[in-house]
């Protein structure tokens, strides 16, 4: 079968990109992995978040602003799928439990403000101001940063909505179709997958951690490593937390998601009692009421990290038409991937900031 674009990877990044390409009239095929393929999309926290992102790299700060500002539009478009993604943008908190954290946060936030030419909105709240907004907060929390631009979404519902939306626009989705080989032939690319052989003029690699080995086949050296995060889920509780925070959020259905751990353990996406204990203790320190709550699930997931933590958007120089879209934060960036990123892939006039994410930055 002949397509305009083959997107390899049907997770948050691949689905958003395929949806965006289809919106621009492209004939798109999405090849997805198997149920047990490592999938950050099915293990993440669901924040649509700018706080802290890009404080040390202005293009990333600006890109996250673009993405979060396009998010309400994406959310509206996805309503047609009738999947309730529970998107909210009321703002979000990141707590500080000591003076050092407060000072580091304050300088991070002001760096982010500068990096976005003042587009990033935030406020540093001391304990008493914070307590007025969140009465359940413990006195161990000395303050917090708050950004009205932050929000959250149900990430599993989002993935489902994107898959439905792209298929409504004519995208062909093929699951259980691991890619075995990609070969350039007469200015096109032939992709051999578990379910057949497909041809397209353009290939977009959205396979997360697998982008490394897929890129290799095409002469691209995409540096990507895994970082594990573990997550705890509580029983459903009556709503008590109106805003998402970096490590604790209450979902629309009432469960509380607790997380934010960072481990380098290769491709192991399991859980460990030690880390789950740490994240539970930090959550209880912040919200003492959580100590009486039952936990019902825990899982581990692998973040897709590049050497500097920023996305890699790169067209292959030896195989033009092959694009790498390698990043974490696929939820936050979904709206940018479904919009401006597709302009760049299609070679239309595009936002110059995207060029800042080429791999040239790793060459010294």
């Amino acid at each position, binding site marked *: 079968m002949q397509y305009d674009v083959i997107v390899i990877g049907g997770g948050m990044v691949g689905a958003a990109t395929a949806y965006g390409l289809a919106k621009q009239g492209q004939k798109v095929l999405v090849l997805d992995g198997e149920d047990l393929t490592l999938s950050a999309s099915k293990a993440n926290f669901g924040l649509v978040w700018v706080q802290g992102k890009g404080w040390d790299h202005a293009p990333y700060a600006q890109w996250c602003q673009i993405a979060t500002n396009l998010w309400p539009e994406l959310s509206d478009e996805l309503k047609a799928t009738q999947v309730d993604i529970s998107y909210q943008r009321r703002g979000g908190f990141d707590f500080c439990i000591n003076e050092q954290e407060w000072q580091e946060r304050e300088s991070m936030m002001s760096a982010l403000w500068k990096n976005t030419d003042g587009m990033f909105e935030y406020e540093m709240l001391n304990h008493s101001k914070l307590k007025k907004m969140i009465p359940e907060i413990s006195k161990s929390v000395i303050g917090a940063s708050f950004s009205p631009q932050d929000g959250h979404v149900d990430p599993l519902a989002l993935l489902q909505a994107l898959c439905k939306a792209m298929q409504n626009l004519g995208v062909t989705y093929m699951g259980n179709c691991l890619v075995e080989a990609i070969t350039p032939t007469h200015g096109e690319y032939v992709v051999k997958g578990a379910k057949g052989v497909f041809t397209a003029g353009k290939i977009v690699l959205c396979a997360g951690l697998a982008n490394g080995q897929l890129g290799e086949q095409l002469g691209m050296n995409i540096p990507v490593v895994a970082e594990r995060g573990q997550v705890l889920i509580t029983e459903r*509780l009556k709503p008590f937390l109106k805003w998402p925070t970096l490590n604790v959020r209450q979902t629309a259905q009432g469960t509380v998601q607790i997380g934010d751990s960072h481990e380098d353990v290769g491709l192991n996406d399991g859980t460990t009692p030690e880390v789950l204990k740490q994240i539970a203790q930090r959550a209880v320190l912040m919200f003492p009421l959580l100590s009486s709550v039952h936990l019902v699930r825990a899982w581990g997931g692998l973040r897709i990290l590049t050497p500097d933590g920023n996305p890699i958007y790169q067209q292959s120089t030896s195989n033009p038409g092959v694009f790498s879209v390698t990043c974490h934060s696929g939820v936050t960036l979904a709206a940018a991937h479904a919009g401006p990123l597709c302009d760049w892939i299609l070679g239309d006039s595009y936002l110059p900031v995207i060029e800042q994410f080429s791999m040239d930055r790793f060459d010294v």
Partner: protein
Amino acid sequence: MFKVLDDNHEFDTQISFDGKDHLVPSNITVAAAALLIGVKSIRETPVTGAKRMPLCMMGVCYECLMKIDGVGNQRSCQTLVRQGMVIERQIGATEVEAEYYEA
């Protein structure tokens, strides 16, 4: 609908179920007691409010969640009845206990 098979069971344990007192055999689970009493539903789900009854009776499915002695979302099939136990239907999501709020 349900009855105790062993005739020698004594109905000697008093429990309160949604405000009404009942005598049930000792050494049975709260879920079994609910079936014996003949209640129509033991909980209403948090998301849609659907009425539910115990299902697996072996601690796996979490369908039998009830409020037992003031603590919500208890698996009634894994909890034995006790003299004076106060059992309530679990209506929607549980509330976080106010006593755990910090002064």
